[in-house]
């Protein structure tokens, strides 16, 4: 037992702490891997933290089915309501601020102050994207003044199901920064958590489950990104892939595999997660639909 993990495992007065089982999050509920496999997650000092589920190819495929099933409801919801749901995630995350900070501290060894700062930034990131839900259409869409008696306008629409490989280094802020833009416009996601820091992703899933995010909108897999991601990159019912969490060579391979059904590949240059995220990621998950209609007396 390392010193840091005492934050999680209190045993005052001889009481033995109750440990949590970390499962996969799919279709709104928590499951062990169908493969029965787990892997050991260690804290910053190398001590045992938990056995996380080691997701398999079948888990990944099941997660895609859950994401596809949720797509109709989520993308059909008014943008205002999606914004409300994302804001609710921020509210619930803020309320669990210290829980996340202590988990991050244990996992990464950062100071309390740094951990709290990252949680705050993650809350603010949800709020930033919550506000975009009912605004992106006016920023990215509009009327087209075609030369003829037609009403012609363009609107952004979500691509569909995204595979999101969360960054390996940023356990919460980076994770939120890749999930929120994938879902804010109505898309649904299969997220592969950081292999190094998978536990905050599962704890975040508990926040999502408590925030009225419909089941299946975000599905979280833990395991080996190199094992799972090729199946997602080549999956014909996945419409986009964010390869942020894959090391360089693997990312190239995944982008190439994604070309099979012309997935949208999200691969922004590496950035500092604490800076203004801009619109690149959000726009990466959008299609543009143009509608023509005649004008006549």
């Amino acid at each position, binding site marked *: 037992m390392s010193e840091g993990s005492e934050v999680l495992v209190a045993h005052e007065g001889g009481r033995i702490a109750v440990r949590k089982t970390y499962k996969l999050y799919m279709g709104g509920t928590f499951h062990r891997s169908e493969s029965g496999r787990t892997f050991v997650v260690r804290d910053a000092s190398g001590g045992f933290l938990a056995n996380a589920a080691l997701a398999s190819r079948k888990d990944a495929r099941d997660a895609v089915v859950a994401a596809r099933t949720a797509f109709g409801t989520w993308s059909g919801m008014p*943008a*205002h309501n999606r*914004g*409300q749901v994302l*804001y609710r995630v921020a509210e619930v995350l803020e309320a669990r601020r210290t829980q996340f900070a202590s988990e991050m501290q244990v996992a990464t060894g950062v100071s309390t102050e740094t951990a709290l700062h990252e949680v705050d930034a993650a809350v*603010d990131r949800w*709020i*930033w994207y*919550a*506000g*975009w*839900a*009912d*605004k992106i*259409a*006016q*920023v990215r869409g509009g009327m087209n003044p075609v030369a003829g*008696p037609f*009403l012609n306008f363009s609107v952004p629409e979500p691509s569909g199901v995204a595979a999101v490989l969360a960054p390996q280094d940023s356990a919460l802020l980076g994770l939120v920064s890749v999930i929120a833009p994938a879902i804010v416009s109505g898309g649904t996601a299969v997220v592969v958590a950081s292999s190094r820091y998978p536990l905050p992703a599962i704890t975040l899933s508990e926040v999502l489950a408590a925030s009225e995010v419909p089941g299946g909108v975000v599905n979280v897999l833990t395991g080996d990104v190199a094992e799972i991601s090729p199946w997602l990159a080549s999956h014909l019912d996945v419409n986009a892939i964010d390869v942020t969490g894959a090391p360089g060579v693997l990312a190239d391979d995944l982008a190439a595999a994604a070309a099979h059904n012309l997935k949208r590949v999200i691969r922004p240059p590496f950035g500092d997660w604490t800076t203004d995220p801009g*619109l690149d990621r959000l726009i990466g998950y959008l299609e543009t639909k143009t509608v023509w*209609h*005649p*004008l*006549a*007396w």
Partner: protein
Amino acid sequence: MRFEYAPAPESRAVITLRDSYGLFIGGSFVAGSSVFKTISPATEDVLAEVTLGGAEDVDRAVAAARHAYERTWSVMPGKERGKYLFRIARLITERARELAVLETLDNGMPILQARDVDVPLASAHFFYHAGWADKLGYAGFGPSPRPLGVAGQVIPWNFPLLMLAWKIAPALACGNTVVLKPAETTPLTALLFAEICADADLPPGVVNVVTGDGGTGHSLVAHPGIDKIAFTGARSVGKEIARMCAVSGKRLTLELGGTATNIVFDDADVDQAVEGIVNGIFFNQGHVCCTGSRLLVQESVAGTFLDALRSRMARLRLGDPLDRNTDIGAINSRAQLDKITSLVSSGTADGASRWSAPCTLPDHGFWFPPTLLTEVPSASRIMQEEIFGPVLSVATFSTPEEALVKANGAPYGLSAGVWTQQGALLLQMSSALRAGVIWANTFNRFDPSSPFGGYKESGFGREGGRHGLEAYLDVVSAGDVGGGIGV
């Protein structure tokens, strides 16, 4: 077949009225120099005593707003400003029933409209604009648009809380501070809103509420410490404000009502159109700036359409605004009732035929039955002036061109409605109508993301949506000035 309705009154127990209300200046309620009483238009009972803001009160409020603007609000990062607006949105929703009952008591609108339209839209407006506070650089007004400063906002009595939200939410999101003057007859929800601002820990002075009458509004518009005026109300007052701002150089947006026309073509779905037109004119007793007060029906279907309309109107339930079965509430004031009565008389004197729905008017309070005027001459005052009451004037047309001439002939241009199953005709009419909002096969739809505002003498500037932000941003110099506020 007629159904009997048991009374279904909303409880007044959710509200606690104080005997007397001060002005909300610099984050707390303060006494003013004199007071007036606000009454319930449904019963004429006094609800509370309210402060009549004088010139010196306006001066204090403007000073508080200026202080908050310079020290706090304009220098706060947008994402933090936004959090206050999110809080306000949530607090409005949490106190929604209380606000709705208070609105109905003070205004006379049916409780269902207060509960399902006025209050939830007000909350949604804050929620929507909260999200803009840290995204102003993406709104198309330059990379770092700046706020204007202190906004003086004068709002009407028809949707007191919603009009407050339309004014305050974008102003705050863009980094301005405000002095709001609610309508003389409906100050109470604005005062409850002031409590909500305090509960949200909104920095003192960011929102100031000065109740009063026309004189209070005049002091606000004339105050040299104000950078921008936003006014919703009567056209004559709007023109006077425009003259004042022309001299003072204040930025100005105006929303001045209208005489919206609903145009029904012979292929329209009759049931859908009747429902939409009834909603369009009788919603909130016609106390809606975009109310569909004029109806143009294509000649070939006019007879059957008007029969269907009368039949629907006869089933409207007029009475206690707090009753959940009520469709038509009270007229907001005796002055407004007198104006409606006078305009209807002028219409019948011009040759129009009057038909009113058979309903019993309560003994106390201000009431006017849902009324139809047919064979109204185009030049009649009632076709040209805003009546702001439950009175629908009907004329007919034979061709789309004729309908357009009649619809566009009014000096106003706030909104219009078109009813037809032909998409191409619908859109062609929409592009030819000279009005700021066109409803196609629907009417009186509002959304915080949808810009609202008029053409011609209905005013200028838009409220809502990306376009509405412009009213509170210094977009002229945004490209020239570095820095700007935090976004």
